[in-house]
């Protein structure tokens, strides 16, 4: 029956027996041993991304006969009935709004937990 107070006593004594250990330069020694941050890599990353995107765009332009498919698709768009365009815009709006509400709700429950 008196198991819990005995546990509490033991836990308390264990915690008290090893008091706070002063830093005494420990943190500084750890920081000296850390590898230096690789700043070069951080600058390179956006350059590589932009370069790859430009290359991919150029390749697409060349391989698609000067982007002819864009003109074709644009022409097709003009032939779609107006009602379809309105329905598509409404559906897109609803989809985005539902996604936003879902994200907000999951974020709120995360913060509350």
């Amino acid at each position, binding site marked *: 029956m008196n198991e819990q107070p*005995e*546990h509490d*006593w*033991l*836990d308390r*004594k*264990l*915690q*008290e*027996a*090893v*008091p*706070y*250990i*002063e*830093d005494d330069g*420990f*943190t500084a*020694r*750890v*920081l000296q*041993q*850390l*590898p230096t*941050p*690789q*700043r070069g890599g*951080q600058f390179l990353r956006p350059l590589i991304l932009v370069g790859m995107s430009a290359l991919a765009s150029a390749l697409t332009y060349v391989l698609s006969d000067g982007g002819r498919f864009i003109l074709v698709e644009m022409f097709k768009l003009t032939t779609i009935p107006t009602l379809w365009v309105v329905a598509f815009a409404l559906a897109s709006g609803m989809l985005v709004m539902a996604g936003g509400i879902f994200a907000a709700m999951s974020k709120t429950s995360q913060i509350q937990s």
Partner: protein
Amino acid sequence: MELTDAGLVARVLVDDDQHAFGELVRRHQSSVRGLLRQLTRGDFALADDLAQNAFVRAYKNIRSFRGEAKFSTWLYRITYNCFREDARRRKELVGINEEQWQAEHDPQTVDPGLRHDLMHALSLLPLHERSAVLLCCKNGLSHDEASRVLEIPLGTVKTNVLRGREKLKKTLAAWAQ
């Protein structure tokens, strides 16, 4: 406003901010060094070397911290792995440095005799019971967290804590009265 551990980790991840990591070291150095001092049975120099290795390893692997557990639990796991690897390499652990123990402790809070007996009783526990007792009773981890740190089943942690506590209680029975 003081940043949480998770906030500091985010700074390290996004900006490679070593000052933020320094703050994490400052916050947790005492508990990590304290745990290692007891795991190594009072070898302060070895404990500090292992603590430094643990923090450097934590920095290098910080991308593997997913925030599912507390930062301290993740750090204890790295710390315990560092200790285990070193113990395996050495195959033996050094004895208690009693004088250093006593020099560091505040005589106002715990009776020196009790402290001596407690540390001695702890050092006599087998490693698996000592680790479980230290993490759960001294460092305040839950059984579940300790099971993740020690990489052993939850039931084993509970058994080890129970057995370790029983042995400590038996050894310190005179002090508890």
